[in-house]
């Protein structure tokens, strides 16, 4: 291969034929895409044709890494799973921390592609050159954690890294997740259902090799300085202490804490869901993903009450929101219990909680009745109900069966105007933000390639009022509007530039907590490290990296366009456009989406009417092959 950082190999496993192939990583892909999301987009576009049923053997599950995955660079242990979305039917990706990405690289591969469908339940076992489909009938029905430990035990190696599905993946819950290291989830879009549809219980990887970069000495020196920057950063220190729980108070303060199915952004019980409340009472240990000196993961233990004895990592802020404020529940132990169930069954906590929120509101409004729910009375702030419904979803039992489809499909089946209460974009439930009081996220939610997403282009600079950073990145002429959360002006500029940077972040791949919040590393840092790691000089130019990012965004868009997505789908639930924020500092605010969409398409070089990439843009980004 000759290039630093890469192993130069793609491992392909065809479950239908029971064959394994190792392809060379084409050099041209590196120049065009760098790695991670970029490689995966190239493969998915070329190999999963338009109209493919996501749960059919023709869909593929891709695990991709980047050129610095598994090195000393801060937080370089993250990985992305990509597929056509089980829940959404469009481009789907889910990033996860833990250790499995580095392990794939130590085994000698940059990318893993799993395709076809196994006749019988199996797990994929990869140990360096040895690749095997192992019978998994004895693992079927086990929790993700049990399956993981069983595999480590029978292969006699506790260092095997496993991504497993639980009952939810087996039963094709549309937002089923893959769980690694007991509690880290490739949560969103239903990767677990894709694996379940292929009859695969788990992907287990062990590697004994190493990663060499182009210039080892220089890379190590730079990586150590980068680690130091994380360590001394005051916000990173706070994150290390409180994890993402720190966000609860921030969101409450700006009136953006989704409450009662996103009706409002203010929650009276927020303090019970804040770091100040949780850490001293419940936290027993701090943990980290591979190569991370921040360590945002918290292991917690509930000493008393109905969930006494629960020992589990998390949940993240998003889980506090989904099983706390969204359901009107002011009780941390409930959210931890919910997180444990989501981890065991392998489910996305955001979609699960928000789908339950949908059902409660629809019930409250008389759209759902006890006849639909099998006698259950749905109401806010009902802890037992939330936990009970969650288990029913994981098992697809009773009323849980319809909720297991996610809010969009559940609303469609229920009819009677239930769609009004389904908080999703393109089938993916809205994450823990509110566009009415944080205008740029409205645009992110509407345009995100995988649906209502908080990870691909969320701007934190406006939300938190980082004036200096904003001036540096976007020019002081755009101040103060660009950091005013209540105006549409300049928001597309912020979203596009942020999305571009995150695209490169997702090719390396590094954690969002060193880039997005707190904003420690940005494009120029990537331009510094990439040439040293890979030896590819052109990666040293921010312009070139920006072009690669634009190519990635536009290619994902072309994938979605083939599935029928256009401007009409870049929408938000009516609530955000028509129901003014009822209270809090952003009282009265609504989203005006169209002007932001116009700006966004203009900056992306997409047609204003259709929202699709223009011929010129496609040519400029050398994507003619994808039309």
């Amino acid at each position, binding site marked *: 291969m000759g290039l630093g950082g890469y192993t130069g190999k793609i491992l392909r496993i065809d479950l239908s034929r029971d064959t394994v192939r190792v392809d060379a990583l084409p050099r041209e892909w590196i120049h065009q895409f760098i790695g991670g999301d970029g490689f995966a987009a190239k493969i998915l576009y070329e190999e999963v044709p338009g109209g493919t049923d996501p749960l059919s053997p023709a869909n593929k599950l891709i695990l991709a890494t980047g050129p610095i995955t*598994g*090195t*000393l660079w801060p937080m370089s242990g993250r990985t992305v799973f990509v597929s056509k979305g089980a829940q959404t039917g469009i481009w789907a990706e889910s990033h996860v921390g833990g*250790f499995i990405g580095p392990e794939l690289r*130590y085994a000698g591969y940059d990318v893993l592609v799993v395709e076809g469908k196994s006749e019988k339940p199996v797990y994929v076992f990869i140990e360096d050159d040895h690749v095997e489909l192992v019978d998994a009938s004895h693992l079927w029905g086990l929790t993700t*954690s049990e399956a*993981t*430990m069983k595999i480590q035990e029978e292969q006699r190696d*506790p260092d095997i890294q496993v991504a497993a599905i639980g009952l939810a993946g087996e039963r094709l819950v549309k937002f089923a997740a893959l769980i690694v*290291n*007991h*509690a880290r989830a490739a949560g969103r879009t239903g990767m677990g259902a894709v694996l379940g549809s292929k009859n695969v219980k788990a992907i287990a990887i062990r*590697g*004994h*090799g*190493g*990663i*060499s*970069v182009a210039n*080892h000495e220089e890379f*190590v020196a730079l990586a*150590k300085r980068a*680690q130091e920057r994380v*360590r001394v950063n005051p916000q990173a220190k706070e994150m290390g202490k409180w994890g993402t729980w720190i966000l609860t108070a921030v969101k409450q303060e700006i009136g953006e804490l989704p409450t009662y199915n996103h009706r409002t952004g203010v929650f009276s019980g927020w303090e019970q869901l804040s770091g100040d409340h949780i850490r001293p009472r419940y936290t*027993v*240990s*701090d*943990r*980290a*993903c*591979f*190569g*991370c*000196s*921040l*360590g945002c*993961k918290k*292991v917690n*233990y509930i*000493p008393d009450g109905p969930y*006494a*004895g629960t*020992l589990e*990592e998390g949940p993240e802020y998003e889980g506090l929101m989904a099983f706390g404020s969204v359901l009107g529940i002011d009780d941390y132990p409930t959210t931890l219990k919910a997180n444990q169930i989501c981890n065991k069954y392998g489910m996305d906590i955001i979609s699960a909680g928000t789908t339950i929120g949908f059902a409660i509101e629809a019930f409250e409004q008389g759209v759902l009745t006890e006849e639909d729910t099998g006698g259950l009375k749905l109401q806010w702030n009902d802890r037992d109900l939330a936990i009970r419904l969650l288990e029913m979803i994981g098992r697809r039992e009773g009323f849980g069966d319809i909720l297991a489809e996610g809010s969009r499909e559940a609303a469609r089946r229920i009819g009677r105007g239930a769609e009004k209460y389904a908080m999703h974009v393109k089938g993916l439930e809205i994450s823990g933000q509110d566009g009415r009081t944080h205008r740029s996220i409205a645009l992110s939610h509407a345009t995100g390639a995988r649906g209502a997403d908080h990870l691909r282009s969320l701007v934190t600079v406006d939300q938190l009022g980082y004036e200096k950073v904003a001036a540096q990145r976007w020019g002081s002429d755009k101040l103060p509007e660009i950091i005013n959360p209540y105006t549409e002006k300049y928001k597309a500029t912020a979203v596009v530039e942020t999305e571009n940077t995150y695209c490169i972040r997702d090719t390396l791949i590094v954690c969002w907590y060193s880039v997005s919040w707190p904003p420690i590393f940005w494009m120029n840092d990537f331009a510094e490290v990439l040439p040293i790691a890979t030896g590819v000089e052109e990666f040293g130019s921010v312009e070139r990296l920006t072009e690669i990012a634009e190519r990635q965004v536009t290619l994902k868009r072309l994938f979605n366009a083939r599935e029928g997505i256009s401007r009409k789908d870049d929408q938000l639930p009516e609530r955000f456009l028509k129901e003014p924020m009822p209270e809090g500092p952003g009282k009265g605010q609504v989203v005006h989406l169209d002007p932001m969409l116009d700006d966004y398409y203009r900056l992306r070089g997409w047609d204003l009417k259709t929202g699709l990439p223009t011929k010129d843009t496609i040519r400029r980004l050398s994507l003619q092959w994808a039309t």
Partner: protein
Amino acid sequence: MVTLQKQLSVDYTKCTGCRLCELACSAKHEGVFQPSLARLRIVKYDDLGLDIPNVCGPCEEAPCVDICPVYAMRRDPVTKMVYLEEDKCILCKACVGVCTAGVIRLDTVAMRIIKCDHCGGDPECVKICPTGAITYGTPAQTAVVERHGKLKAYVAEIHRNAMKE
């Protein structure tokens, strides 16, 4: 001059399991990022949320020294540190199996035994560790007691709940 008995000390309560120490060790000694060639190991218990660094020493008895048939493993009588004299080693691998911390390793490519040498007194793992879970110095008794605190708390809680049920 007095030689201090410097050792690597471990405090599990601080370890986050980030494995930066494994990366830094292999980066320094092998010029690659390869945890399987690191001279220390982080043993992870994801189900309990525990991460336990395993390093060379301090061993009261050094089984690797006792078992080596050709005296390639030698123990410094003052520092108690065990060193490998590579040119004497006949690769019988007995030490690999007998090391209680599992940190004597076999490099299956170069076919050689690899073992911690405290980086000649300037341990790379200690410098990179973000939490102070590994330190280098004369061991204090208190640290040894404290490091069992987390485990003890876990076991007590699990016991308490088992009694309830």
